[in-house]
């Protein structure tokens, strides 16, 4: 097991480096931004460009980039948006907003989603089940930003329950901050609830019809006992890894939702870096999103092995 985890992690790092290298080269190939001549930072940026080997072969540039990152955690300076500032420190400032909003969202959506799924599975083929399943399907289909528009229009503008945009400041866990986050949290929540409800329902209906459930009932357990002790445990084999995946995903934020509600998060930073062609920020966010994606996949895979002893990880098929 340890060996398998190590192997997978190493492989993930290798894939990560490959992707980073490809993106790095593609970004470095783009024409460099023209620096404002009067600004005090220009000289520093020019010197840094020299030090980073901007006129050397790409492989060497990548080597220098990696060395800087690994030895000094130096991701370079912003050359456009936040002129002359350290990219990593800008990024770290943006991280909490994304994380807090996503955290609030998944904290309540996962239980609700799972509960709905269980409810639907237990009431299979009744109107409750049909209602939940159809609603789930509908909610999953509609992109999150459509809800965001609706929520913003109805709750923020018509009813004026919440502010239009997220409050400024860094008091992430204060009450006014929470209230200003609610529209964004809600917009992010629908999809997650529906996703979990659907997975849970599908998994639980399958488990409920399996033979060990019959055995559990035959040996005298009540329906509740059998469901809680046997069915739920088995269906969590699929759900728990998905929860882990969600938790890693909270780092990323959402490009669109963050834009709509003015959340000063990673998504907005990425978008600004793309539109403003700030390459160093773009490289950093690219690495970040790649790492999140790969890590989520890895954690989901590995957690399967931990949760379900029947799955022998890394064994030959």
């Amino acid at each position: 097991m340890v060996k398998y985890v190590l192997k997978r992690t190493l492989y993930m790092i290798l894939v990560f480096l490959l992707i980073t290298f490809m993106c790095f080269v593609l970004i470095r190939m783009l024409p460099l931004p023209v620096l404002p001549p009067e600004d005090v930072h220009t000289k520093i940026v020019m010197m840094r460009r020299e030090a980073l080997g901007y006129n050397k072969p790409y492989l060497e540039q990548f080597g220098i980039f990696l060395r800087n990152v690994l030895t000094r955690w130096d991701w370079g300076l912003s050359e456009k948006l936040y002129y002359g500032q350290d990219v990593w420190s800008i990024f770290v400032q943006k991280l909490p907003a994304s994380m807090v909003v996503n955290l609030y969202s998944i904290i309540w959506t996962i239980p609700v989603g799972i509960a709905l799924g269980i409810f639907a599975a237990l009431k299979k083929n009744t109107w409750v089940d049909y209602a939940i399943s159809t609603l789930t399907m509908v909610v999953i289909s509609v992109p999150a930003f459509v809800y965001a528009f609706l929520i913003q229009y109805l709750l923020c503008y018509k009813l004026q329950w919440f502010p239009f945009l997220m409050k400024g400041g860094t008091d992430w866990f204060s009450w006014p901050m929470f209230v200003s986050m609610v529209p964004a949290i809600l917009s992010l929540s629908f999809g997650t609830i529906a996703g979990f409800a659907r997975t849970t329902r599908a998994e639980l209906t399958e488990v409920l019809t399996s033979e060990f459930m019959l055995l559990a009932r035959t040996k005298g357990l009540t329906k509740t006992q059998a469901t809680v002790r046997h069915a739920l445990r088995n269906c969590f084999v699929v759900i728990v890894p998905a929860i882990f995946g969600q938790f890693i995903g909270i780092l990323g934020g959402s490009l669109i939702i963050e834009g709509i509600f003015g959340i000063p998060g990673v998504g907005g930073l990425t978008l600004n870096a793309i539109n403003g062609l700030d390459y160093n920020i773009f490289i950093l966010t690219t690495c970040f999103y790649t790492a999140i994606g790969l890590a989520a996949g890895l954690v989901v895979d590995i957690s399967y092995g931990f949760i379900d002893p029947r799955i022998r990880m890394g064994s030959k098929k």
Partner: protein
Amino acid sequence: MMNNTTNYDHIPAERFAFVQENEKLHDQDLQTKSRGFFADAMLRFSKNKSSVIAAWILLFLVLFAIFSPIISRYSVYDTDKLYVNFPAYVPGVAAMNIGIMDGAKTFDSQNDTAMLKWRAIAEETGMDPVLRVLNTHETEVKYRGQMVTRTTYDIEVNYYFATGMIYKTFSYDEYKALQAWQNETGIQVIYPYVDPADINGQTDTPNVWYQVDGSGVPVLDKDGNFIPVYSTNTSGTGVAYDSIRIDGDDGSYAYASAKAGAVQCRVLYYNYYQYVNGHEPSYILGTNLMGLDLFCAIGAGARFSLIFAILVSVINLTIGAVYGAIQGYYGGAVDMILDRICDVLSGVPFVVVTTLFQLHLAAKVGALGAFLFAFVLTGWISMAALTRKQFYRFKGQEFVMAARTLGASDWRLMFKHIFPNAIGTIITSCALVIPSTISTETQMTYLGIVNLRAFAGTTIGTLLSDGRAAATSAPHAILWPSIFLGLLMISFNLFGNGLRDAFNPTTRGVDD
């Protein structure tokens, strides 16, 4: 009688007869009509009510996308500079006065002065902007030491009529052409000029044609009528006005003011619009930020999205099928290497791919080409995985061995013998790839990472981002594209699910 049918113990011998005695038994032809795979699937599909409904809605949406740009009087390149974010208005429907498509916009708390101004527009243009009074509020206000009752009204206004007059500068030729058009059609566009000096120096209020006091409040004569202050300074217009004059004009009113080789006129925009476009404004769903007809724009955007999504899924299907077939058929080292390539490609975030492709390729192959490449770069991976799985399932089976024994080549085995077995799964998953492509495409165009305005005129994503800019003042501009997108996604997904269940009854799992 009852006894005869239930008394099996004593059945008389003469009731028995031989089925055959001295003849050979043959297999009989099937009496029932045989049902093919497709017909079977269709039967299963039609039993799934929600999918059937979804299919009808989908059909409607697709027809809408095809025909709305044709039906509409406008194209996606017809943008009006003034009718921006305007509500739905169709003259024919508005005339019926049933409360829809009448260009209505609610104005809250209009006081008496405001109401007078609306009346002035109605009197001059003959088009009453006030459609209906929704509420009347009466408040007691203390004014100069006395209690006065102030009445305010919540009214609905025809926003198109409310625009009223604008100042417009014409060249002499245009001015002449406009007069000729007026004489021909009898629709008055040019109204008498008003000199700002005559209305207390209020420039920029082309709708004021009456005497006002210092704070812009209309001054009425003793009968409660407006006092016109049309300019009579006819000198220097360059071109004589020889066309329709308003009632009460004794020929002394000036209809234009000279402005450096051109003339400035007070123009009734609603009629000027008819002069320019040849018809009255008619926007079934209203206009958006760009002054686009939403009815046409949504259709055109959706048409682009659909064609694009189908193109993407066809390309991805082809690449994925070949790639997955090679992976699945050869297995072993080939499979492993190809799988690693998939791992790397699928790890790159889509936003990054799109951005990089736009930055590198857009100049060479256009924004659309670069966007297409971005979709193709990673889109085929899931299709390849699907094909690979199917190949693993079928490649060990007897019919493949038989074909191989008969000397079939690898290629023939892959695509003549194994692939047809997997095609049902692949095609149906295509029905789910299309909506996800549309969704991603919409997000990218909404964010402005990809700008397809030059190529497609507009897309749903562009419409959404335009609509968002005025989400509070003109909610319809974001509502209609959102509803369309939502419906399209829901019906496509339901339809795709139904199709998948119908074609692969074994993989349903949901309702066994």
